[in-house]
C-alpha cells in the first residue's frame, strides 16, 4: 500500500505540492489527470524518493520513504517507474538495458538475468530486438523496453509518468496495450496520463490534480460523468 499524507514541496519560491494526500491499495490502478505543471509528475518522483519533500510523509508498505534511515536503493527495487522521455541507456543493447539492474542491484548471474530479461522483453513484444541498440528502435519500442526494464526487477508497484506524451500518435497504442496488459494481470499502478479514454477504461480510481492539490478522486464513472467540483468539470470540458 502506498500512503501519501499531506505532502508539500517547493522548488524555490514555487510551491508545486500544497498538501497532497492519497492512498493506493495493492492491486489497484489509479490514474492521475490534470493540466501541465500541476505537480503530478513531481508527486511520482517523491514516491520513490527521487525528489525530497518539505512536509508530510509517504509510506510504501509501511516504510517511510523520506526517513533518514530508509535504504532508498532497496526501496526502489519495489517501485518501478517509467518516464515520459523513455531514457534508454544508449550505450547498452536492449537486453543489456534490461539486465543491468538485475545484475548490479540484485546480483544475479548473467544467465539468470538474461532469462528474466528475455521473458519480460517477450512479454512486451520485443523478443526479436534483444541485440539492438536503442537508437535503432522507435519511440514506442524504446518505451516498451523501459517498461520491461522496470518489470524485470519484479516491482510491487509501477509508476507511469506521462509515458505516451512524447510519442508519435501512431505509436501511443502499442504502449497503452502493454500497460493494459499489466493492469489486467493485477499490477498495482499509478498512471499520470493525458489519455482520458485509457484512464477511464483501465483505472479503478481517477484523481484530478490542479495547482498542487488533488481536487477530486473517485471511480472513473463518478469523475468523468458526474464530477463534483467545478474545476474538474472545466478541465474535462477542455480536454474531451
Amino acid at each position, binding site marked *: 500500500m502506498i500512503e501519501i499524507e499531506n505532502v508539500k514541496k517547493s522548488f524555490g519560491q514555487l510551491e508545486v505540492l500544497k498538501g497532497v494526500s492519497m492512498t493506493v491499495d495493492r492491486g489497484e490502478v489509479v490514474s492521475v489527470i490534470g493540466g501541465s505543471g500541476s505537480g503530478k509528475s513531481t508527486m511520482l*518522483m517523491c514516491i*520513490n524518493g*527521487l525528489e525530497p519533500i518539505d512536509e508530510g510523509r509517504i509510506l510504501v508498505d509501511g516504510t517511510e520513504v523520506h526517513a533518514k534511515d530508509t535504504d532508498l*536503493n*532497496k526501496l*526502489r*527495487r519495489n*517501485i*518501478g*517507474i517509467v*518516464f515520459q*522521455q523513455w*531514457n534508454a*541507456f*544508449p*550505450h547498452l543493447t536492449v537486453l543489456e538495458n534490461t539486465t*543491468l*539492474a538485475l545484475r*548490479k*542491484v*540484485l546480483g544475479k548471474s548473467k544467465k539468470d538475468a538474461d532469462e528474466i530479461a528475455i521473458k519480460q522483453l517477450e512479454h512486451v513484444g520485443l523478443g526479436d530486438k534483444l541485440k539492438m541498440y536503442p*537508437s535503432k528502435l522507435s519511440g514506442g519500442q524504446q518505451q516498451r523496453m*523501459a517498461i520491461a*526494464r*522496470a518489470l524485470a*526487477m519484479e516491482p510491487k508497484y509501477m509508476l507511469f509518468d506521462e509515458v505516451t506524451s512524447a510519442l508519435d500518435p501512431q505509436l501511443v497504442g502499442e504502449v497503452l496495450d502493454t500497460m493494459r496488459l499489466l493492469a489486467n494481470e493485477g499490477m498495482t499502478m499509478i498512471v499520470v496520463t493525458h489519455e482520458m479514454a485509457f484512464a477511464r477504461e483501465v483505472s479503478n480510481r481517477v484523481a484530478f490534480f490542479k495547482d498542487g492539490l488533488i481536487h477530486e478522486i473517485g471511480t472513473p464513472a463518478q469523475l468523468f460523468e458526474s464530477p463534483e467540483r467545478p474545476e474538474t468539470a472545466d478541465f474535462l470540458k477542455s480536454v474531451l
Partner: protein
Amino acid sequence: MFGTSITWGDISFMLSGAGLTLAITFWAMLGGTLAGLVFGVIRAQSPWYVNYPLGTVLDVLRSVPLLIQFILFNSFQSIIGLNMNPFVVGCAVLAAYTAAFCTEIVRGGILSVPTTTRRAARSLGLTYWQDLREIVLPLGTRVMLPSWIGLTLGVMKDTALVYAIGVIELLRSSQIIITRKPHEALVILAIAGLMYFIVSFPVSRLGAHLERKWREND
C-alpha cells in the same frame, strides 16, 4: 646524409630525445587523467564550498605559463630538500597541469549525461556509484574522449618546455645540435618537426574521426 654534415649520431641523439618526450607525455597523462577523473567527479556534484576552492586552484594551474610552473616547482622542491631529478619534476608538474584540464573535460562529460537518464538508473535501484560507473562514465566518454585525445597531443607539445629545468627532450636535443651546426638549423628543425608530426597527426585524425562518428550515432 642528405649531403650535409648531420650524422647518424645526431639523429639517434634526437631520437632518444623523442623517447623522453613520449615518456614524459605518458607519465603526465597517466597521473593527470587519474587525478582529473577524481577531481572531475567532485567538481560535477559538490556544493560550492568544495567546488569553489578546488576550481580556483585548477584555474591557477591553467592560467600561469607552464614554463614558470616548471621553474617554480623545481626551485621549491630543491628549497625543501627533496632533490628530485628533473625528469620526475617535469612529469609531476605536467601531470598537475594535465589534471587541471582533464578535470574540466570529465566534469563536462558527466554534466552532458541528461539528468533524466541518471534518474532512470537510480529508479531501478542502482546506487550512486553504480550509476556513475555503468551509465554516466560510458556515456560521458563519448563526449570526453575527443577532448582527451586533444589534451594528450597538447601535453606532448608542452613537454618541449621541460627544457627549462634541464631535461633533454626532442626539441632541446635539436637545439643542442643546432648550436653545434648552426648552418644546418633548417634541416635539423625539419627533422624534429617531422618527428612531432608523425606522432601528432595520426592521433589528431583519430580524434576527429571518433568525434564525427559519434555525432552521427546520436
